[in-house]
Each structure stands twice: as structure tokens, then as C-alpha cells.
């Protein structure tokens, strides 16, 4: 397929508005990273998947889309929407799409700050890895010790993290440093199927599998000393990073509503270029139900990361001797969501439904959604790397608010498929290589380790640099992993 890209600046490329596109496409990339995307688009559908740039153009045709169909620097093909895709829709005339959220609703990253340094952890990291692997359930079908009664699940879906904190799993200040306070309004458990709820009873406080992880990292470099001071971060400080989502509940909501919105797309005659883009008008009964179910899924994921943070604090305290409450929240931010937010469009403040699919909210200075302590610099953006590579803390900017609805990347983004990755690496060898670099991995699945090989991902440093140079985010700190418990 022919797809034209126009260079706007060194770090922004535009897919001009043509045919039925309502807005242009805009991709954060440099000369080197745009080239393979264009090549992929020209080559057509590898393995039946629509190329990422074509997906960006497809999203630009959906009713009510505002300004541009955006892709962050970690762009790669998803289903329907590209991963790294951001799209804002008019809250009256726009649509909501399952493909714009994904199956893992509110997959996100939570970071905890410890009072310890790299030197404190280095001698005890093997014991720490073992304790974390024991205490935080991970892997396919993992179940946790935090069991809910059937009557409690609806409460959890409405209340989110506060539900978990009220039960003694965490500090009340954890909520202040969670996006939406860990509880997004408008969750209606009645719009979540019984089966979705039943699948979740035993999964609260579990990591799951795939690219989900719990990492112990140290801060290798600080780029923005003022923001680091405000966030309470210093060089060599040890932090805990938790990457996971809404587990089976989110998967089941996605499955259930894929069917509902497939029917809605036909009912409302919404022109979609790709079957996977099934959607419903935001104001339709189907659209409203789906949004309320996504909100329930978001609360479930916030609660899940809260429960895991509690388990991680316990494991850390046991091995290091520090008090669990001396481990404080930096922030918790989601990267698979659709949310109502207000943004300026053509000089006018508008209520929009923002889809972020493998993209992180990145609100800059001054926004009321940012906790008061961070408001002068914007909230921390947590960008996960892979097992062997760096992770980053960034912050939002005014330019990012104006240009990309306050959004950023969610990680490195894959460059090799899981099949290719398994062909190239063996799990056991990878563990040895990483151990030689001082990184301890604990995982129940060797093939899972091979699929998540660091070499299968794009260069995280480059991905982050593109967003930084484009001026839509600023780099604050870079972390290196010491221990990784992989789902």
C-alpha cells in the first residue's frame, strides 16, 4: 500500500489528510525510525496485520476525531489502532473503540521509591529476587492470596485502589500519587459481565505474564535536577517498578465488547476501514456501556497494582529490614485507556474522549489532575524498558499538552516478533547473559523470557530521545534494572 509521509520537523512526520481521512496522521519519529515504518507500509500486511502507518491513517477516518491521529515514538502495529496510538474524539459527535484501548485495560506502571541505594541492595539482591518471586504471584493463570468475596468485586470495580487501601494494603498517600486517585468515576459494574468478574476473584494482586514485570532498579542518571528534587529522586537510589494491568477482567471486558461494538458499528453505519476498528458513538447506549465497563476495568487495574505494591513492600522489608511504609509512591500512570479530558482545540477548551493505546498520559505543569506536590513540573511519566535495558522517568510539557493531548510513549516497542525472538534466543542463555551484567531474573517461563529478550525491542534510549527532542516531554532520570520478576 502506498503511504506518503511528509517531514514536519526532525522528530515529527505527517501523513497528509487524503481521501476519507478527517484529520492528518502525525508520528513522532526521526529519519532512522520512520524508514522501517514506511517500508512496512509499502510491503503490505505481514502476517495479516495492517502496517502501523496505515493504522494511523485508518484511525484518522473515524467520526469526531480531533486535530490529528497521533503515534508516539514507540509506534508498532497493534490490532486496529497502532500501539503508541493516541486519538481524541469530540465527546458528542465522536466514537469509542475497543481497538483504541486494547484487551489489557489500564495496563500501566507504578513506581515506588525506597530509601536505599544500589550499594545497599547489591549484596542481597539474590535473596530479594527470591522473596519477590515468592510473594508476588506471576505467570499464566496466576492467582493471589488477596481473595475477594463475590459481593465485594462490584465494590472493587467502583472504588479501585481505595478499596484495597481500606483493607490495609498500602498507605492512604498512595492514592494521591495514582492517576485519577486510583479511582476513576463512572464505573458501572452492571455493565461488566458476571464471567469477567468471576475470572477476577482470584487474580487481584497478580502480575500475569507476557511483558508484565516487577523490577528493582537503581537511578543511573539524573537529567533534570529540579524535577528530580521535586519527585524526591537521587542518583543510585533504588526504586521498584510494577508493570501490569487489569488481568482477566480487562481481557473479558475487551472480548465481550468486541462483539457488542461489532454489532453497533453495523447498527449505526459507522464507516470503518478495518474490521478491528469496531466502535460505537460515545453517546449511544452501547458506547456509554463500554466506557463505564472500561472505567470498571481501570479501577480493577489500579487496585491490582496497589495490591502488588503492598506485596512488594512486604518482601522488601523482610529482606532489607527497612519499614514497609518507608517505601513511598512516586506515581502510578496508565497506558491503555480511554478517558474524558479537557484540552484546547483551535483555541477553545473542549471535552474530549482520549484513547491512549500503549501510550501514557503525560500532563505537564499546572494541570489540576497533577498532584499539588508535582504541579510545578507535571506528573512523572513512567516508561518501561525491557529486562536488560534502561527505564525512564520523564515529565510532561506545555508543548506536549498543545501538540499531543499530553501523551507519551509507554515503552520501547517491539522490533522483532515473539516467534523471531524465540528463534534467536534461548531463555536459559539469556538468563546467564543478564546475570553476567548483574541483572537477576526470576520467571516461571523460559520461553516467556526468550520472547521478551531485550534484543527484540527497539532502542529505548532512542525512543525517549525522540520525544524529548520533539519537546513534548523532558527526560528526568534513567534507571537500570537489578532484579526482574517476569510474569
Amino acid at each position: 500500500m502506498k503511504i506518503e509521509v511528509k517531514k514536519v520537523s526532525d522528530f515529527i512526520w505527517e501523513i497528509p489528510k487524503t481521501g476519507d481521512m478527517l484529520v492528518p496522521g502525525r508520528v513522532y519519529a526521526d529519519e532512522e525510525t520512520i524508514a522501517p515504518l514506511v517500508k512496512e507500509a509499502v510491503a503490505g500486511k505481514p502476517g495479516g496485520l495492517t502496517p502501523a502507518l496505515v493504522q494511523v491513517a485508518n484511525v484518522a477516518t473515524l467520526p469526531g476525531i480531533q486535530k490529528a491521529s497521533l503515534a508516539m515514538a514507540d509506534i508498532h502495529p497493534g490490532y486496529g489502532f497502532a500501539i503508541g496510538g493516541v486519538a481524541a474524539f469530540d465527546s458528542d459527535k465522536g466514537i469509542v473503540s475497543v481497538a483504541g484501548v486494547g484487551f489489557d485495560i489500564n495496563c500501566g506502571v507504578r513506581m515506588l521509591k525506597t530509601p536505599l541505594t544500589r550499594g545497599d541492595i547489591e549484596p542481597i539482591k539474590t535473596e530479594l529476587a527470591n522473596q519477590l518471586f515468592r510473594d508476588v504471584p506471576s505467570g499464566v493463570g496466576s492467582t493471589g492470596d488477596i481473595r475477594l468475596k463475590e459481593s465485594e468485586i462490584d465494590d472493587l470495580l467502583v472504588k479501585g485502589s481505595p478499596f484495597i487501601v481500606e483493607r490495609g494494603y498500602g498507605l492512604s498517600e498512595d492514592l494521591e500519587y495514582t492517576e485519577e486517585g486510583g479511582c476513576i468515576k463512572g464505573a458501572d459494574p452492571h455493565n461488566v459481565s458476571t464471567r469477567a468478574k468471576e475470572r477476577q476473584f482470584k487474580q487481584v494482586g497478580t502480575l500475569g505474564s507476557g511483558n508484565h514485570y516487577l523490577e528493582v532498579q537503581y537511578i543511573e542518571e539524573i537529567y533534570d535536577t529540579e524535577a528530580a528534587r521535586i519527585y524526591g529522586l537521587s542518583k543510585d537510589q533504588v526504586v521498584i517498578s510494577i508493570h501490569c494491568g487489569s488481568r482477566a477482567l480487562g481481557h473479558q471486558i475487551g472480548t465481550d465488547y468486541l462483539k457488542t461494538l461489532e454489532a453497533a458499528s453495523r447498527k449505526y453505519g459507522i464507516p470503518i476501514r478495518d474490521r478491528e476498528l469496531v466502535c460505537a458513538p460515545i453517546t449511544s447506549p452501547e458506547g456509554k456501556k463500554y466506557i463505564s465497563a472500561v472505567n470498571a476495568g481501570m479501577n480493577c487495574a489500579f487496585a491490582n497494582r496497589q495490591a502488588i505494591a503492598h506485596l512488594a513492600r512486604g518482601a522488601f522489608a523482610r529482606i532489607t529490614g527497612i519499614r514497609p511504609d518507608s517505601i513511598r509512591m512516586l506515581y502510578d500512570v496508565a497506558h491503555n485507556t480511554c478517558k474524558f479530558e479537557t484540552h484546547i482545540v483551535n483555541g477553545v477548551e473542549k471535552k474530549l474522549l482520549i484513547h491512549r493505546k500503549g501510550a501514557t498520559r503525560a500532563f505537564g505543569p499546572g494541570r489540576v489532575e497533577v498532584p499539588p506536590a508535582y504541579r510545578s513540573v507535571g506528573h512523572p511519566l513512567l516508561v518501561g524498558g525491557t529486562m536488560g535495558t534502561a527505564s525512564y522517568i520523564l515529565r510532561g510539557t506545555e508543548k506536549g499538552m498543545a501538540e499531543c493531548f499530553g501523551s507519551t510513549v509507554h515503552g520501547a516497542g517491539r522490533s522483532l516478533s515473539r516467534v523471531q525472538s524465540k528463534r534467536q534466543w534461548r531463555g536459559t542463555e539469556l538468563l546467564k547473559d543478564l546475570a553476567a551484567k548483574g541483572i537477576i531474573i526470576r520467571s516461571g517461563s523460559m520461553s516467556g523470557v526468550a520472547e521478551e529478550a531485550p534484543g527484540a525491542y527497539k532502542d529505548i534510549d532512542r525512543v525517549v530521545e525522540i520525544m524529548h527532542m520533539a519537546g513534548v516531554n523532558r527526560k528526568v532520570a534513567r534507571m537500570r534494572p537489578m532484579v526482574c520478576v517476569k510474569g
Partner: protein
Amino acid sequence: MTYSYHEHISDIGIKAEARDLKSAFNEGASAMLNVMFDLTTIDENEAHEIRAEAPEIETLFVEVLNEVLSIQGLRELAFKRVETTAIEETAEGYRYSGRAFGEKFDRSRHEARTEVKGATYSGLRYNGGTGGVHELECILDV
């Protein structure tokens, strides 16, 4: 009868091929289950009913795969295979019935691989009976 995987950057594409449609559904389910587990480690101690309905064969395939995932997750099982009983035409499309065989998931005995979050409409294709072969393809979100 066979199944295969295709290159796909973030997820896994599956392709099932068989002489008849029912067997193609069985192969498709095996392709998905094999992503999640080493199937040789699973015994067939339990059977569970799988039912689904959809307007077309393609969407029925996605529905069946998601139903298998859902029941497996709900009952904490590891399925080894699916046997299709019937695929019938109805006024609204198609109705599927079949059974999934496996046992309670036990991480000490079952080699778990990668969790499948869902079967998607991406890369969804059905090629019915060209040259006597039924092909079903879709992409799994993992």
C-alpha cells in the same frame, strides 16, 4: 490437518488448515492452546462444553477461541484440545458446539508459556473449501 504461526511484531498470528471446517476449528484451538502451554504436559481428565454464536464463520472462530480462553480462566484449567461437535447454520448466522478437554492447571506439572489475552478480529480470514482445504486465520493478543 495442521496449524502454524506467522510473523507478527507484537502478537501471534495463527493459521489452521484442515479438510473440513470442524477440524479447522479444532486445529485453530490447538494453535492457541499451544501458545499458552506445552500441551504434552496436560492430561485429559475433564471435558467442558463450548458454545458460541456469530453472524459469520470468521467471527464464530474468534468467539469460539475467546470462549475457550474464558472457560479455561474461569475454572482454572489447562486445556489440551478442543473437539468440535457441530457447526450449524441458523437464521442469524452460525451456532457452534464442542467440547474442550484438559485438567486443573497445576504450575508444578504444566509448562506454562505465554498468556493469551484474547483472539482479535485482526488478520481474520476464512477460506472455505478451495482445493478441499478449509483455512482459518486470526491474530491473538498476547
